[in-house]
């Protein structure tokens, strides 16, 4: 497993769930949402809530990304080898 913290672009499907995500040089299409959960963040320091997705991509990769509700940004957290 590799831990990465990089901002990504995410396209959502009609249910508002991630359909694909990309960063410069790479694009992945979501085959299945394995898991989804919420994390409250460091609310005492003003951090907002995060929605975390564990995704299986069409190319067989397993990724963990999250949506940071306070900033409205998406981030890649983990890549599972």
């Amino acid at each position, binding site marked *: 497993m590799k831990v990465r913290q990089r901002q990504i672009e995410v396209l959502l499907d009609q249910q508002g769930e991630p359909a694909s995500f990309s960063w410069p040089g790479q694009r992945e299409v979501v085959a299945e949402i394995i898991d989804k959960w*919420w994390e*409250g963040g460091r*609310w005492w320091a003003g951090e907002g809530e995060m929605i975390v997705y564990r995704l299986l991509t069409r190319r067989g990769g397993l990724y963990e990304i999250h949506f940071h509700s306070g900033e409205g940004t998406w981030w890649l957290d983990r890549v599972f080898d």
Partner: protein
Amino acid sequence: MFVHLHVHSPFSFLDGASPLERLIDRAAELGMEALALTDHDNVCGAVRFHRLAQGKGIKPIQGVEITLAGGGHLTLLAKGPGGYGNICRLITKAHLDNPRGTPQITPEDLARHKDGLIVLSGCRRGPIASSLLQGDYDGARELAEWYKRTWGQDFYLELPPPHLPGGRRLNRLLAELGDVLAIPLVAAGNVHYAEKADYPVCDLLACLRTGTTLEDVHPLRPLNGEDYLKSSREMETLFADYPGALENSCKIAAACEPALDLGRNLFPRYPTEEKASHLLRRLVWDGAHQRYGSLSTGVRERLEHELAIIEQLDVADYFLVVWDVVRFANAKGIRYAGRGSAADSAVAYCLGITEVDAIARGLLFERFLSLERAQKPDIDIDFDARYRDLVADYVYDKYGAEHVASVCTFNTFRARSAIREVGKALGFAPEELDALAKRFPHIPADAIEPALDHFPELSFLKGERRYRLLWRLCAAVAGLPRFIGTHLGGLVISGVPLVEITPLQQAAKGALIAQFDKDDIEDLGLLKLDLLSLRTLSVVEDAVAAISRADDDFSYLHIPLDDEETYQMLGRGETIGVFQLESPAQRALQARLGAKGIEDIVASVALIRPGPIKGDMVEPFIARRQGKEETEYLHPRLEPILAKTYGVILFQEQVLEIAIAVGGFSPGEADNLRKVLSSLRSQRELDALGRQFIARAQTNGIDAQRAEAIFSLIAGYAGYGFCEAHAAAFGTTAYKTAYLAAHYPAEFFAALLNHQPMGFYPPQTIRLEASRRGITFLPVDINESGPDYLPGEGTIRISLGQVKDMGAQHLEAILKAREAGPFAGLEDFCRRVRLPRNIIANLILVGAFDGLHPNRRALLWQLGRGDGTELLPPPQIEDFSPYQKFLYEYSLLGLTAGGHLIGFLRPKLGQRGILARAQLDSLPDGKKVQVAGLVIRPHRPPTKSGRTVVFLTLEDETGIIDVTVFENVYRRFGHLLFSHPALIIEGTLQKRGAGLGIIARRAESLPLGDARSPAPSPPG
């Protein structure tokens, strides 16, 4: 639609984050038709939940989230009263079969008490869910099969909300299991708070519970803010794949009925062959003959009236239970006194429960019990503090452990506790939090931020940004219960086994407590009896015993209520040590009032209370009592009611009497009116009640304008009124302790010192007062002192028991060794008594060996050089200075036989023109003076103007001085008043009646280590 069946209130201590009221209000806003309450291992919120939910048209479903052996959770719901009874039994077993604070239940116990329950498999910590999360499908299946065998169609697999890692997969596996085993599913919210915005409070509470800070990671902290009371629509979205699970929540709710039946009479039947009401009558008439001799028509009619109400309300057993308890106390020679509104009852007087003659005082029985209010009687009795538990044990033995328990209380967050605990979670250092907390008065946790503006000694905190989150979070937890505790005196006695009504658990001191507080106990129909400890009764008992040793004829019961010397003493404001009358406000009142009879004392007890003070009753009362002001009545019908209090409404009973005389109310209706007036929440309600009163007054022949004025009078007062019966009960004890202080000061003050801590003043102040009355205090003496303070002819010997670190076993060793003869010296003592060295050192330092060798420092050296029993002779070295000796005695005894800290500073103070208390008597009113002293009990009581006024007492070597600090001075010097042990006050002398005080203009700290070199720390 959907029904929440897994909900935590704040009675899931440090877990549920929204008050019950908010949870239910939110459920009502969302249109929920039913709601379950499932707190951790208790049903503490059940009664309030039942009332609040029904009030909003929501069906209350009682339940619990119970902890299983191994730590898993299971959700149990009661289908009705039978199921609720089994929940109570299971919770009781969980608590009593395990160490305190670690309740858990075995599968065997669950199966034994399974009837009437619907069981849900629990949240992620349920045994089935946690097996699945750990990959143990077979284990989960086996458990599910067992639950299905045990509960059949009343067992459901609970689908937790899928907002945690692995949540979706878990629900898929649960659904699969349900399919395979034909077990229905139910969706649940695992609710911990009303709205998403409450999540931070829930997370904070988890930190308090786990002892972590916000920056720490802990598995028991909630990962996100999704555990709020979601709407049906939100739940439908969340469980879109399991529509049957949502429907089943409604099906379950429909299968449950409200489990509590409030307002029943579950009183125990007093064990007697004859009918309870007959026995009661017999006892009352016997008692009446003893109290009154021959019975007048008035007495007979009054007793018949009370007995009829008692019989109609079917509460004769209650009176017999209480009569039996005081009969036991009497038989054992345990001093007691009935208090509160029970003193409105002539029946209680004839049974010997109270000592107030309600008939002679014209007290209305309906203030205590009436058909209209139909409430349960509630009698409180004070006992000699030493023997209160003996009386409680008698109750347990008589009615059986299954039927008796202590009532509980809920300890809630207040300002100081919130600052300490929340501050710890925020990562502040404990020392900083302790210092911060102590600065605040005893206010609610959500009054902290307003207090920063209101109290000048706190204003410096306003600008401190780093405390802002702390204040906000303290406000958020304000009023939430932190843990369950034991009510000080309340016992519940039940006619049915208590576990059918309430779970029981162990309290810290080993007693069993019910899981309901005094209000909920009454709602459940249970009998509550308050057996309270009152140290004043212990003081009285000891003083009377000492007096009786010298005077066979002395009788406390027959102390005359018209003793001139006692009233003169009270009129001088010399009331330190006197029950109820010793506070500075009371002393000032007594000095101005010049009490002449017991009614003045009864009125005094009621007068110095927030209500009369804020209602501006005190000054008119004093002025009229002294004939300086005319007493006028709004209507002639008020005169017979208010004449004894000079036209001022002091007592709740007077409100009743006015409603009867003016509005034509029956006594029961009048008491209802009083109760409603005291709990009004809006002007609208008050206006409606006013219109009703005025209309009735008019039909009773009173004009509208006068009726309106009278209504304003009682409406303004009713919320604060004091019960006259209670005032009378306390007033009698107050007067009698004053009599003892006046006539037997050595016996009285010795007894008072033997039962510290109690009362308003520290031991040194009591010693000063006794000395001022001519009592000589004899120092601790190793050969003369006993375990307690010992009164003699005009003397009090300080006790060995007073010495710091002296335990009961050490004292016993000294006294036993002394039986063989007095100690000849330190070496002889060390040979005959085995004591820790520090205690011997303390004895030396307080002068216990002065009679054998005058040099304390030399004795300490001698002790330090010896090997325990073989000591070298004491050397020739300089002893401690008188100031050092004084400091050691004060620190190791809490008082001294003579001298005063301020006395040592007097030469320097005198150079500055600072006067002693004794020098103020000869000065005129209005003189500008400077005084200095140790600060005693600074406090900020409510005032009629609403402005802040601080009252404090300064103590010097000649007496005490009461100081008043008005707001303008308080704003400048308030930061000194509550945190400095000694002050210099500059102000104006004020003489009112026989009393004397200072109105402060300036304050300055008085450093205590200034005058002499500081005392060294005790050796060892």
